[in-house]
């Protein structure tokens, strides 16, 4: 899956390099553990994050800005044997296509969504996103934003996601574990991945200081997960929990659409015609 033919077009120091490397390891390990690579489909939105699918020689669906999740749902429903992993941006999926995220969580469809949350629109040169802090100055908000950030994990917990975690591109070992866990989770899994954009919003110092590894709470308890999720609101100077917040099992939407059920339609249609006389 490393072909190295396509030049990598991220800025030096970009958090996306770590994500790409970890993804390579994860896919290799999963293969060894019985998830054949040909059954993996990567979907992506549009933004710097999405370029990852060009750099992996794996089945991929390079979609539209904000719409990767909806397309991924179609892929999964068409062929539930496929493992569908979706790479999206914070502008992409917490902004432009937020409804698809909420509804995919509500359906608990078996997808893994990795949100490269750099808290800026990197590809379009650093405008604010739904997770930029209050007062963030970008080219569309030179005086600073007048809106509070959204806590996406709180929203998705309420929407019905059955696996929620936060990762950080500098903590690669943890990220690898989270990614594998999320991919193997039978249901809607989302990782809010703090992926630092060195050019437009370099938060390395901040995340290094405030980040801590989440341990010791009951993952299956909604309220415990919620209180951990609410610790940091993407605005305050609070501690930033890194790790798994929540994991439960519920029936998945795709489980109701299993199999191709090929049938000879001709006699069925004939019967329907007869009923219409």
């Amino acid at each position: 899956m490393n072909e190295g033919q396509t030049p990598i077009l991220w800025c030096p120091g970009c958090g996306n390099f770590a994500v790409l490397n970890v993804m390579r390891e994860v896919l290799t390990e999963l293969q060894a553990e019985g998830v054949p690579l040909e059954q993996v489909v990567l979907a992506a939105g549009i933004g710097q994050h999405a370029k990852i699918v060009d750099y992996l020689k794996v089945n991929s669906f390079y979609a539209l800005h904000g719409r990767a999740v909806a397309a991924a749902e179609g892929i999964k429903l068409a062929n539930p044997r496929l493992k569908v992993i979706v790479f999206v941006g914070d502008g992409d999926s917490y902004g432009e296509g937020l409804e698809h995220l909420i509804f995919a969580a509500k359906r608990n469809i078996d997808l893994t969504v990795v949100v490269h949350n750099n808290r800026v629109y990197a590809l379009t040169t650093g405008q604010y996103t739904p997770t930029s802090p209050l007062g963030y100055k970008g080219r569309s908000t030179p005086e600073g934003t007048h809106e509070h950030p959204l806590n996406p994990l709180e929203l998705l917990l309420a929407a019905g996601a059955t696996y929620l975690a936060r990762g950080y591109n500098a903590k690669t070992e943890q990220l690898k574990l989270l990614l594998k866990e999320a991919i193997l989770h039978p249901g809607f899994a989302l990782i809010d991945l703090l992926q630092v954009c060195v050019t437009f919003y370099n938060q390395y110092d901040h995340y290094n200081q405030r980040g801590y590894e989440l341990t010791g709470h009951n993952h299956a308890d909604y309220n415990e997960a919620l209180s951990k999720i609410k610790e940091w609101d993407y605005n305050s100077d609070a501690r930033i929990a890194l790790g798994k917040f929540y994991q439960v099992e519920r029936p998945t939407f795709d489980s109701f659409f299993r199999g191709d059920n090929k049938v000879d339609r001709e006699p069925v249609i004939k019967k329907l015609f007869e009923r219409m006389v």
Partner: protein
Amino acid sequence: MESLSVFIGGRAGDGIDQASLLIGKLLNQFGYYIYIYRDYPSLIRGGHTFSIVRAAQARIGAHRQTVDVLLALNQDCLDKHKDKRHSRTIVVYDSDVVKSDGLGIPLTSMVKEAGGPEIMRNTAMLGALAKVLGLPWEKFEAIARANLKKETELNIALARKGYSAADIFYKIEAQNKPPLPILTGNEALALGLSAAGLDAYVAYPMTPSSTILHFLAEHADELKLKVIHPESEIAVIMMALGFAYAGRRAAVGTSGGGFCLMTEGLSFAGMAELPVVIVLGQRPGPSTGLPTYSSQTELLFALWSGQGEFSRLIVAPGDAEEAYYWSGVALRLAWKYQLPAIILTDKNVAEGTYNFDPKEIKQLPEESLDLWSGSGEYLRYQETASGVSPLAFPGEPGRVVKINSYEHEENGTTTEDRPLTKKMQEKRLRKGIALIKEIEGLEAVKVYGRKEAKTAVVCWGSGKHLCVEATEKLDVRVVMPLVLSPLPLVQLRRALEGTHQIIIVEDNATAQLAQLLKLGGIKVDAVILTYDGRPETVEQLEEKIARGVR
């Protein structure tokens, strides 16, 4: 009787729709061809709604100015439809709530006495109609029993009361033809897609296409179809494209507003070469417009929607049989050429009810998918002479399937390379050239009426039956293109050969088909346009055409 029209009207919620279908089925049993036009407001209760059921000895798809029987469940049926009565129109009315001349029956008290819900007034009314038409009770009862599955005994008892209270005015006689299935354009379209190999139908409700969703959801189990109703039309088209990528045939259905939301996905389908069938049911706009009425205002929108330049197929059926066949063609060709196909319907075709003869179903073009041979590296966008790249789907070893909304290399990775950009654009457009050849090989333009006439009336969609009937007595040929993109110009020119005058008839205010024909180099002499949402009657159109013919 050569032909018969029955009007039934009431308030929304009175069950007019079901009642008119039953009338249609009743007359159908006698071997007549049936057409039902439904007129209803965009609300669930209250307001005036009516249907016209027409039976004739020839195929029909339009209604006439007057009706022979007028069944009135409310006063509006008389006050608003004076123009639909001729000197011998029999009016049957609920004398408890309607004031009229004709045959009054106290339907409301009848139903009350029997302890039935108010909606059963129409069953009693149907009983009365059976008598008016001179049908033997036994014959009517058998058909009613087969169709009234809920509270059958009470319904039959009420119908009997209505029957006894009425008199005989007509004598319906069996025609020399077995009854044929009767179904709406949407039902035919849904079955046509299913027969052609549809795997999934994805839609967000919007009149006039919602009944495709309802019909396929109801029969999903029998047909082994995946039917999904997601959060928006944007999700709809993206899901359908996900299905296509995974190798499963998907169709979506909507109206103008929903199609607006789909256009980014449409353009994506063009770029990524993902096949998808979009049913675009037209209703008057702009914006929310008149949700439950008809128009032909999205032709140019369908043709030019979506950013960038890419080929698309647009078909426009004019009745149930054409809806069945052309939706199958749309699905087959979308897959063969890996591009989006649009089935452009209008409310009159979508929700009109027609006879359908399963024996006359035409053979679809062969399903000839160009599948990848499996040797060498798989290139999703491999350059070929026709522009069509061999298909493969994810999930099998030995291939990596990459699709992309950016301009891309043959293997699907992003590129901004200058020569490649040109090459890929040309590759995609070449498919359109192959497509037009295929379309010219099908019967994509129909000619009706006097084929040698010097005047041609050109129409599309639901205009077909209306124009054919309106020109029966005129020296006119009717030309109807069934494919609007790519335009079958060879067939169109042949169909118009020897004409001195071309008159376009369509349901919009800017003569969109005329504009399109002009682009194809066909000179249009006159246009007859309607844009009030309602279908014209045969007589109204006949008069306009007769006035226009030189």
